[in-house]
């Protein structure tokens, strides 16, 4: 049983989703099933993490077809860490959704699709096969389409059209790259490909394929100039869905990028330069975009893009220190971005809308909530000792020691512009005096909520803020994990040996 632990994170969410489909018309039970499923997900993720941490990379050959003929599922430290984080965000979102999503939406299968989405994410993280990665990506996008459109407000549909078109296009580009890889190498197993690709004579072709992969994943992760679908769609669904998307969907693109550009196509000089320029522009345009927006959720959407630049930039430097920084930034970003969108949902309930100019006075009216909301915002800026600070140490060190001044300047620019943006948000929501606004009729404000409704909004934020604080004050734990990930990613033989069941001479 325990040798198949690797695929349990997928199975637990699959079973939860099936159970939820069976209780289709009963939203009350659905809420409990979903929360229990997410808790189980965290437990299984933790067990798997523990196993990988103590015993090294785990792999399972599905259907008992030996690698490279079957589909391998490989759990290395990067994959399991992301699975644990995914499940933590899933738990928070599933608690948050109990009150944030109205029953009519739950009756259209919100929770079932939600768990299919988490299943797709877990699958994408642990698969060791390129085509299977494509299939998991499709599972993710089809679930996200439904989550995005559920409810069917006009603005949601419009955002969904944009989201749909570009994500569909990126899948097609990704599939094109897979076809070309198969045509040149005759294999789709990532571990085997890591050995075949360096031996191929035609370097130009390999270069081309790697860039097609970059475009495919670039659309998904929202890098410059492929990000326009993101700010057009992320603010349209309810806050619970936005939080899930913001925390996880762009990160799976980054994960795929890290995987492909370390294992299959280790970055050469040209690719490094391309990634670096793209990362720089992503930071710049994301930051500028966030600065001009006047709606809280749109500001946060652009901030997602801005901070994607940190991860792509870290990858582009392509040293162990930089990868450690990028991975640590990803851990921090997943949690904090999900928290921010949940906060925007609470603010929507407090003020009746999310326009910055119509907010204000939160510090006077809700001092304790303001303090809670301040933590993730400061963490985002990277105020020491909060979580945003620690990855930047690695990223700045790596770019400085390598003499990549462009990247260093862009990293500093990103930190500063984030500070400016958060200060703007702070001024508009927390400290500015509130204008006497008319209260919307038929709209339930936060102050009118019962205790359990308030708890459903605040408990998940507390959970994630607690995790942020843990990251902040015990950053050495994350640093250790990230260093091991960096070591595993830069030395691909660990991955290869795990898939092909070769005993390692030296333990990690």
């Amino acid at each position, binding site marked *: 049983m325990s040798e198949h632990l690797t695929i349990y994170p997928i199975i637990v969410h699959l079973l939860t989703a099936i159970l939820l489909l069976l209780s289709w018309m009963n939203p009350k039970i659905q809420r409990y099933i979903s929360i229990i499923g997410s808790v189980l997900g965290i437990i299984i993720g933790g067990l798997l993490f523990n196993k990988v941490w103590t015993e090294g990379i785990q792999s399972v050959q599905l259907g008992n077809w030996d690698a490279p003929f079957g589909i391998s599922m490989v759990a290395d430290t990067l994959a399991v860490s992301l699975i644990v984080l995914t499940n933590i965000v899933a738990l928070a979102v599933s608690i948050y959704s109990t009150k944030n999503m109205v029953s009519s939406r739950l009756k259209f299968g919100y929770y079932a699709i939600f768990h299919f989405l988490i299943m797709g994410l877990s699958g994408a993280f642990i698969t060791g096969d390129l*085509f299977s990665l*494509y*299939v998991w990506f*499709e599972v993710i*996008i*089809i679930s996200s*389409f*439904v989550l995005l*459109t559920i409810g*069917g407000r*006009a*603005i949601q*549909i*419009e*955002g*969904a*059209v*944009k989201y*749909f*078109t570009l994500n*569909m*296009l990126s899948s*097609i580009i990704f*599939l*094109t790259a*897979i*076809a*070309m890889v*198969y*045509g040149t190498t*005759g294999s*789709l197993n990532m571990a085997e490909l890591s050995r075949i690709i360096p031996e191929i004579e035609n370097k130009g072709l390999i270069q081309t394929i790697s860039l097609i992969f970059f475009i495919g994943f670039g659309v998904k992760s929202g890098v410059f100039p492929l990000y326009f679908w993101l*700010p*057009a*769609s992320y*603010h*349209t669904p309810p806050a619970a869905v936005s939080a899930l998307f913001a925390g996880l969907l762009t990160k799976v693109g980054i994960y795929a990028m890290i995987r492909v550009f370390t294992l299959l196509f280790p970055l050469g000089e040209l690719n490094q330069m391309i990634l670096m320029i793209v990362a720089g522009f992503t930071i710049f345009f994301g930051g500028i975009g966030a600065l*001009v*927006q*006047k*709606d809280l959720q*749109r500001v946060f959407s652009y901030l997602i893009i801005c901070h994607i630049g940190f991860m792509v930039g870290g990858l582009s430097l392509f040293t162990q220190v930089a990868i450690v920084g990028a991975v640590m930034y990803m851990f921090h970003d997943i949690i904090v971005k999900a928290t921010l969108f949940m906060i925007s949902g609470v603010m929507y309930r407090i003020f009746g809308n999310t*326009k910055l100019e119509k907010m204000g006075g939160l510090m006077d009216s809700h001092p304790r909530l303001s303090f809670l909301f301040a933590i993730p915002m400061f963490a985002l800026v990277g105020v020491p000792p909060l979580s945003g600070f620690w990855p930047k140490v690695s990223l700045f060190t790596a770019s400085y020691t390598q003499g990549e001044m462009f990247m260093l300047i862009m990293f500093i620019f990103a930190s500063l512009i984030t500070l400016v943006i958060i200060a703007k948000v702070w001024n508009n929501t927390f400290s500015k005096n509130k204008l006497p606004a008319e209260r919307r009729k038929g709209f339930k404000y936060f102050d009118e909520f019962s205790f359990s409704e308030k708890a459903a909004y605040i408990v998940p934020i507390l959970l994630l803020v607690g995790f942020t604080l843990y990251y902040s004050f015990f950053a050495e734990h994350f640093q250790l994990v990230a260093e091991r990930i960096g070591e595993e990613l830069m030395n691909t033989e660990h991955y290869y040996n795990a898939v092909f069941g070769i005993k390692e001479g030296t333990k990690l």
Partner: protein
Amino acid sequence: MEILLAIMTGILYAAGIYLILRRSLVKLIIGIVILGNGVNLLIFLMGGLVKGRPPLIQEDSNALVGLYADPVPQALILTAIVISFGLQSFAIVLIKRAYKVLKTDDIDTMNKTDDIT
């Protein structure tokens, strides 16, 4: 045959991208469908074309001998077709819905989500 298929793939890609760049929602979906077919053809082509040699093991041997058609691309295409079928049916429902609530099929007028308000 390879050259013919390669040209065909190119035409499908070009036509698909052209249609995606048009302003009409319906043409957008048709473009995506055509691009999807182009990819499937590309996978098929990349597996190498072998005429009249199915990958079947003869009764008197226990391994494939000689030249045979690669079965993997066909499995891949089958999966890709099923997935794109599902996505396309979703897309068609989506554009129908979009036309109903937004009362337009002109993509250029769909800029409400990008407004700075």
